[in-house]
């Protein structure tokens, strides 16, 4: 839970200091004045990077040397304070927990557990598989250290195998020599890839039904479902590793031609279906937004399960573009789950839903709160 926040030189927020009550805060202000930037700064204390996918350098306020975000926290956060800073010149990012710099940045991941709902979430459903893989990776890496470890090692092995594929191509190597150079990275890919795919499959198995129920409750009449599309159907770790190993071997000749690794969890998809057809291509804008919100609610449930308490909800004008009936249904679902602390950002005071009118209000204007 967030108790107070200090933001320096972060996008258009030059200097912002804020106390936050246990219930949370509603921030009212016109678009373009910094509401989303404030929520993004708070989310940095969870992901240690921009949830909007921006590079750290682009988050630094124009002309500033770097940015700094610091917060004092209450349980269920695991530290009393967390801070993240980035220096433009050295491109160095540091994270501190309780005032102590963390030797590895990833040690500070999830310092302030939060889940963000934003209109941009529609990309989760409407865009390519990469968005949904990132969604799964964030939900799982931040709640399971073994997943994070597997993901980091998998990515390291993948970049080395791809570099080897390119080198082999450039040097014009072929046959057994080329295959031997590439193959040495495959045991690590298979072992850690199996951990990743297994955890993702388990997540989908546990969340598919609640996800479908949520979509129906939000007001989708056609049945919405999710399924994991990957190389192997197994979810047993050693069977998965064997399957991945066999596929890497089978694809190697083609990969040697293309210079890139073509199978593995970095190519899988979390498919979302509407009555059996892909929601991504066949869903209406409203249906896609409902499904995106349902996904975020399952992310929130995943964090809650691990934390034993509700995460901080960052609601960035979440009901824009939704009809009144759907918006009300979502509010009812959130209330039924039990809402913890909320940071709500809306353009006008009239946009604050009745459930959140009890929140204290501040106004955001040109990067300043009043």
């Amino acid at each position, binding site marked *: 839970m967030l108790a107070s926040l200090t933001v320096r030189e972060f996008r258009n927020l030059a200097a912002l200091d804020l106390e936050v009550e246990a219930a949370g805060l509603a921030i009212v202000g016109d678009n373009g004045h910094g509401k989303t930037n404030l929520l993004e700064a708070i989310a940095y204390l969870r992901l240690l990077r921009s949830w909007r996918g921006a590079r750290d350098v682009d988050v630094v306020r124009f002309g500033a040397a770097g940015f700094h975000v610091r917060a004092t926290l209450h349980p269920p956060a695991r530290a009393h304070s967390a801070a993240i800073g980035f220096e433009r010149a050295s491109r160095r990012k540091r994270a501190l927990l309780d005032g102590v710099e963390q030797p590895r940045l990833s040690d500070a991941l999830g310092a302030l557990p939060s889940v963000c709902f934003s209109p941009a979430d529609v990309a989760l459903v409407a865009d390519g598989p990469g968005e949904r893989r990132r969604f799964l990776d964030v939900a799982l890496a931040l709640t399971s250290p073994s997943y994070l470890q597997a993901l980091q090692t998998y990515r390291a092995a993948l970049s080395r195998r791809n*570099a080897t594929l390119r080198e082999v191509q450039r040097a014009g190597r072929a046959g057994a020599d080329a295959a031997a150079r590439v193959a040495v990275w495959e045991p690590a890919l298979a072992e850690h890839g199996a951990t990743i795919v297994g955890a993702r499959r388990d997540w989908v198995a546990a969340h598919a039904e609640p996800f479908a129920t949520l979509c129906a409750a939000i007001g989708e009449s056609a049945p919405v479902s999710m399924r994991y599309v990957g190389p192997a159907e197994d979810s047993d770790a050693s069977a998965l590793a064997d399957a991945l190993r066999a596929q890497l071997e089978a694809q190697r000749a083609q990969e040697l031609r293309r210079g890139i690794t073509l199978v593995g969890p970095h190519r899988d998809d979390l498919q979302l279906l509407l009555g059996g057809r892909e929601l991504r291509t066949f869903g209406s804008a409203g249906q896609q937004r409902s499904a995106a919100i349902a996904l975020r609610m399952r992310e929130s449930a995943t964090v809650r399960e691990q934390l034993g308490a509700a995460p901080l909800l960052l609601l960035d004008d979440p009901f824009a573009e939704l009809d009144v009936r759907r918006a009300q249904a979502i509010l009812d679902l959130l209330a039924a789950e039990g809402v913890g602390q909320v940071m709500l950002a809306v353009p006008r005071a009239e946009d604050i839903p009745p459930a959140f009118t009890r929140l204290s209000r501040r106004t955001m204007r040109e990067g300043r709160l009043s």
Partner: protein
Amino acid sequence: MSAIDDLTTELARLPGIGRKTAQRLTYHLLKQPADQSRRLAQALVTLVDTVRTCTRCFNLTEAPLCSICSDGRRDGTLVCVVEDAADIAAIERAGEFRGRYHVLGGRLSPLDGVGPDDLTIGALLARIPEDEVTEVILATNPSLEGEATALYIQRQLAPLGVRVTRIARGLPVGGDLEYADGVTIAQALQARRDM
């Protein structure tokens, strides 16, 4: 003054030494008796002129063959493969190993452009029949790149019919279980044995 700048720049290239430390070292060298600084310079020149790699195992040596390769009491049929010469010193400190070594000169590191041809793998393969080697112990680091290097060498050695072993991974002796990281504990559990 360029002499000062030159030395500072050279010192700052060394691992673990930044610009400020380099400057402090430079001024220190100027302040101390000139003889002492000359001895340091001479030691550096002697180092680069006389130290080379062993023609057999690529360990560091001042003679054509290193002290281990020229020691007749060492078992030449047992070869321990390490990434760097510094690893030999670590294994020698244990005093357990009575075979000989082979220094790869690094590990497979495609992101740094280091491939099998940049390591001394070809020389290792040639040593197997030449020295009648019966066992090769792969003692590369238990890292992603060290494991890949070991695997590559194992596959190259397979046709030669020599026994290939890999050093075990597990908990450090005298260590505390509660301070070990999860991956190490998981591997120690996998490699558990009956007693």
